[in-house]
């Protein structure tokens, strides 16, 4: 436990330090004062209620895609396909939500749209899951292919009748299918920001996923398969089925991430809505280190970066924050590897 905490601290310190350093260098290279830009980034995000609300809004899909990637990662699989799973689910949610009868009450409409999101995401993960579990084809390549196919398929579906003619967006969902914003709770200070009830939903899903992995039989077998498929096969655990289950479930959670922008913010789907959250989820999962609290914290970090990029965009190109994501991922992974090597070294008593 202590060692795990120490590892987490080392990695966090490394990530934050490398992130700041990279930010300072890039801002300086652009000809602005690093300290001033960093100050602006912080005050525009955590320094004001609207900024906090926006960070939470950006963190919501990231947390869900982070959980999605984590679920697959536990089985030893890389789900690079969250991006496509999210896009397909977003289109499905918005289409169903718009075609419900106009006066559908929320108690009927919400469960329906909330159910279709994970279903669509899971459906999009089925092909890579079968290819991997049944035929051993590498899931990284197949999920990347599915992302590109999703791009084209969503574009095709929008062009062929799901979008309002002449646009790339679907019609509005019925009012009953909207997720209320958090300001409805009386948090008036969040006024205007897009954070919705998708956030508590995401936190609950993160907790449920952790419980499922730790307590359920299938979940524990998924983790064991990730640790050693050969040992599991010897113990007659159905390895292929557990791998497929992990990847399909991962797709379902990634699909659910579409709910935040579609039902909690826009009320419709347009091409590109939610894009980037799928890849962001990989970063969140890597930094989250297999713990739901870690996932929440790293989703907040990347949500801050995303919103912060918008805040500083007038003075420094917001793309610096994308570069920062890459730098932070590498720094944390490097620190992690060092800690792991040190622990192993002690274990082997070299």
């Amino acid at each position, binding site marked *: 436990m202590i060692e795990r905490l120490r590892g987490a601290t080392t990695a966090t310190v490394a990530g934050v330090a490398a992130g700041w350093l990279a930010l300072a260098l890039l801002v300086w290279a652009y000809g602005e004062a690093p300290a001033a830009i960093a100050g602006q980034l912080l005050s525009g995000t955590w320094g004001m209620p609207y900024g906090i609300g926006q960070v939470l809004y950006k963190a919501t899909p990231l947390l869900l895609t982070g959980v999605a990637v984590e679920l697959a990662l536990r089985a030893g699989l890389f789900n690079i396909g969250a991006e496509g799973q999210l896009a397909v689910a977003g289109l499905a949610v918005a289409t169903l939500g718009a075609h419900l009868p106009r006066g559908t009450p929320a108690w009927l409409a919400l469960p329906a749209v909330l159910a279709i999101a994970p279903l669509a995401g899971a459906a999009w993960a089925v092909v890579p899951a079968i290819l991997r579990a049944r035929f051993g084809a590498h899931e990284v390549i197949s999920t990347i292919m599915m992302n590109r196919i999703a791009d084209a398929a969503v574009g095709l579906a929008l062009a062929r009748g799901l979008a309002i003619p002449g646009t790339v967006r679907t019609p509005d969902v019925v009012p009953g299918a909207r997720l209320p914003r958090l300001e409805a709770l009386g948090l008036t200070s969040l006024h205007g920001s897009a954070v919705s009830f998708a956030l508590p939903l995401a936190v609950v899903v993160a907790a449920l996923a952790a419980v499922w992995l730790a307590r359920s039989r299938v979940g524990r077998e998924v983790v064991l398969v990730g640790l050693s498929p050969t040992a599991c096969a010897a113990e007659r655990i159905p390895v292929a089925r557990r791998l497929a289950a992990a990847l399909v479930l991962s797709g379902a959670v990634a699909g659910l991430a579409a709910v935040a922008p579609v039902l909690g913010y826009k009320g419709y789907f347009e091409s590109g809505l939610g894009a980037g959250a799928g890849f962001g989820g990989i*970063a969140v999962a890597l930094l989250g280190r297999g713990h739901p609290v870690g996932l929440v914290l790293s989703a907040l970090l990347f949500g801050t970066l995303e919103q912060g990029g918008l805040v500083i965009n007038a003075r420094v190109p917001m793309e610096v924050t994308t570069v920062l994501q890459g730098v932070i991922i590498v720094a944390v992974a490097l620190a992690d590897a060092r800690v792991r090597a040190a622990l192993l070294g002690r274990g082997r008593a070299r």
Partner: protein
Amino acid sequence: MSFLAAVLSATMLAQTLRMAVPYVCAGLGGVWSERSGVVNIALEGILLAGGLAGVVAHVATGSAWTGVAAGAIVGAAIGALHAVIVVRGRVDAIVSGLAVNLAAAGGTRFLLRTLYDSSSNSPPVEGFRVAGLGGGSGVALLARTALDPLTLATAALVAGTAWTMLRTRFGLRVRACGEEPAAAAAVGVDVPRVRLAAVSLGGAICGLGGVALAYDQHQFQSGMSGGRGFIALAAVVLSGWRPGRAAAACVAFAALDAVQIVVQDQARAAGYAAQMLPYLAALVALWVIARRRGQGAIAGRPPAALGKAID
């Protein structure tokens, strides 16, 4: 003009060749990297960074050849970075590759805005002009593409990679590091160094592909790699990590792209469906090959130590 005639025309051949150059370069980069044991999904980012480096150097010096050199150097540098992170830092190669891709996507946009005050594209560049071959006919386009220095260089690189990989001492060492790093180390091969060299060499070739991509459009556009690095990687896997076949698979994917261009001229509506074509094809091919490999029907397996850290 019927669909069949369009697909069998000189234009189609020319478009295939044109689209093939970046794919083949990225594919060769993937072969070098993965045969040495380092998984490389960073090809996508290297295409982008190499392309921008080529255009920046071309704009700055006015020489297309300087751009080619810059693209190769930046490609090699990023390859080396990826290799150092993975081999020395013992970071999972997928993680490092993702981070490289993120940094390249953001970094190229950042540089575009810093240098040219635009986040979408660079100023126009001349690229290579083959003298005396103007005109818009399919045959003229074919001749121009076939005689483009980067097309010729790519063809030479395919042959060079196959020969170096299979017939030289360096190639043998690279393969040994990918198959049995422990055995290679035992006979005195410096495994980390060989891997670093192989991934850097692959990065340089992939960077050339980025330059070809940008010169073809006569400018750099942000995100212009458009998934080609990933497709090339799929081609490497499908080919069983063999250079000649990987190049052939890349040309096949380029042909699907060319169909897309030719079809788009005929019917716009078919554009989206055609856009899916290379990826669907890759998925189906992946399935067929995985199945047949599983039955032991065909040769061509991943390098035994692919993706494994060395102790």
